[in-house]
């Protein structure tokens, strides 16, 4: 399989136009994704200015070490997928596949680590409505913090899961020579999506894990 087997659809004049359209479409979709997550970040901001202390208290209950490792994992995976696109553009198939595999594996390990976090929180009674045992002055504000924590991280994990599946498909197709230096738009778009998932996490990290850590 190679680019010749990807005829340009009727609505496009040529492959350049097709690629422009696909990339612009993906970026427009990413802009909507920013606003999807944005609502949660806006909710976070507006609640945090009302309950700064409770948010700090809530944040102190999260696992900062694991959160930092997760961030590093996602950053590395982002670099890996960027390199794999580069590799395909330069005609390297095996290394590109391997890099995609690494990206998917890093994504999966992120999910596993997050699973451990959720489990620890369950045991600590930090899951609103499901298992909530917090008492004290900040209990209510913390419950709002944890509602947001779950909305944000679960929605993000959903994106990571979709990304991992896409990356595996891309790795499989790259291995089977679906993409080459001339045609690799789906791979590029998947990489863009994965980077956005990374960017979201870059903001999740300080807002969820790093509040009120000093002292």
């Amino acid at each position, binding site marked *: 399989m190679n680019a010749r087997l990807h005829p340009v659809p009727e609505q496009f004049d040529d492959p350049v136009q097709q690629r422009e359209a696909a990339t612009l479409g993906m970026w427009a979709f990413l802009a*909507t994704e920013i606003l999807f997550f944005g609502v949660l970040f806006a909710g976070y901001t507006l609640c945090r200015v009302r309950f700064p202390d409770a948010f700090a208290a809530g944040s102190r209950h999260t696992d900062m070490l694991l959160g930092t490792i997760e961030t590093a994992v996602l950053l590395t995976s982002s670099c890996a997928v960027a390199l794999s696109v580069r590799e395909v553009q330069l005609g390297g198939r095996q290394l590109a596949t391997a890099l995609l595999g690494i990206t998917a594996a890093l994504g999966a390990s992120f999910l596993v680590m997050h699973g451990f976090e959720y489990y620890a929180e369950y045991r600590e009674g930090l899951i609103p409505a499901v298992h909530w045992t917090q008492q004290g002055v900040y209990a209510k504000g913390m*419950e*709002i913090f944890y*509602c947001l924590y779950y*909305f944000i991280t679960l929605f993000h994990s959903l994106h990571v899961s979709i990304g991992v599946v896409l990356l595996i498909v891309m790795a499989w197709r790259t291995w089977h020579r679906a993409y080459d230096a001339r045609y690799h738009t789906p791979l590029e778009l998947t990489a863009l999506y994965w980077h956005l998932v990374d960017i979201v996490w870059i903001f999740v990290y300080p807002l969820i894990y790093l509040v009120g850590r000093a002292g």
Partner: protein
Amino acid sequence: MSTVERPAPPRSYLEEGFGLRSWLTTHDHKRIAILYGIGITAFFFLGGLAAALVRLELVTPAGDLVSAETYNKAFTFHGVVMVWFFLIPSIPATLGNFLLPLMIGARDVAFPRLNLFSWYLYIVGGLFTLACLLLGGIDTGWTFYTPFSTMFSNSHVMLAVVGVFIVGFSSIFTGLNFIVTVHTLRAPGMTWMRLPLFVWAMYAVALVMILATPVLAMTLSLIALERLFGVGIFDPALGGDPVLFQHFFWFYSHPAVYIMILPAMGVVSELITHGARRRIFGYQFMVWAIIGIAVVGFLVWGHHMFVAGQSMYASIVFSILSFIIAVPSAIKVFNWTATLYKGDISFDAPMLYALGFVGLFMLGGLTGLFLAATALDVNLTDTYFVVAHFHYIMVGGAVMAYLGGVHYWWPKITGRLYSEAWARFAAILMFFGFNLTFFPQYILGWEGMPRRYHEYLPQYQVWNVLSSAGATILGVSYLLPLLYLGWSLRRGARAGANPWDATGLEWQTPSPPPLHNFAQTPTVTEGPYAYRQ
């Protein structure tokens, strides 16, 4: 520009396949537009039935026709259906889908499969909403205000919320498709400043769709989860803020008003230039007005919340921004009027709809100033004044323009001509029926009748009876086009490629157009509306 006579017109898109399957699996933007057309027409009459029930109940002050619960469900269903299943998809998904590629000289939209997928999402969302109705309905009002919707309502909030959530994706994908199509698929020579204003309007609407709709989707998810689990960030018991929900909701829902009216403005620009056979007056100002409305439209949402517990200072900021957005709307009205100057005006049905639009839009827009003025809004908000105001914009404005557009492009879409006399009659009847229905509601509002009232004080009855009488006329005038347009499908005379002798690329191809619109990609050499006299 001149029409090009072709000896043997190519097979039209309607003849590309006749079975149900050929429609349900089509990737052709024109067929998808028709699928949408069928969907929104069905929902329009469903929502209309709910409105009829509301108006019937309000003939008498006592709540004697239906119970308060049924009444609340009727106006909620009316709102949900009309906003998300009729108005928002109406012009963009039908006329926009059909015409956008034709007007820019493209063979289809950029992502035809995504386009079909949007329609399926629309239908699935619609089915959830219908399921909600059949299982007993929802009584929160279309605004889903917390904590009523999350903690107190005993109706099927979840189903409605899921339905609206899904249909939101439909409009995101439509918007995405339009943006990419306009950017990448314009014919040679079709520069930005040669785009018809309808295309500009679609582009601006697409922008609003992709940037606002995600906010609605997430906000509704937050509502759904809060209802499901009994905790959430809007929950007052936790110190959560119901006003926060209103911020998010209106961050979407105010721009959504522009999703409804911007396409209408685009349509009317086409209709008025056609009716007056003149270039649009002040094309560039019209373009900037469209963009200005789309962008500033995002900055005014707080004017829905002047008495909702929003801070006094924030209200002042939102108030001034709301006044500012009235300026581009005023520019548009003045330019339409000036377009008539030295024109060669014919009063065919599309032109009548367009003139009706300008009149009703002015009344709706100017009353918006009363609501933007904080001190007046205190008294007027949540009364029938608001109901009248937004119906003037959305029904008087958007629906008039939609029907005008349907009449104007009907020969292009179906290849048939309708009965001009009936069409003019319906347009005039609609204008009078509309004013009789909604003008009394301004007076009711100023006299203090709150909206969403099942029972009301006897002193308000006179105006309510007038309004309900008007609604009857309005209902008839909405049914008429269904009849004569339906009749024209079988019996109407064949339309040529360009029955209006209009400019615009869509008229340069046969009616109905062939599968990929143009035999050869056209090249554009001049701006829009180049009418010669």
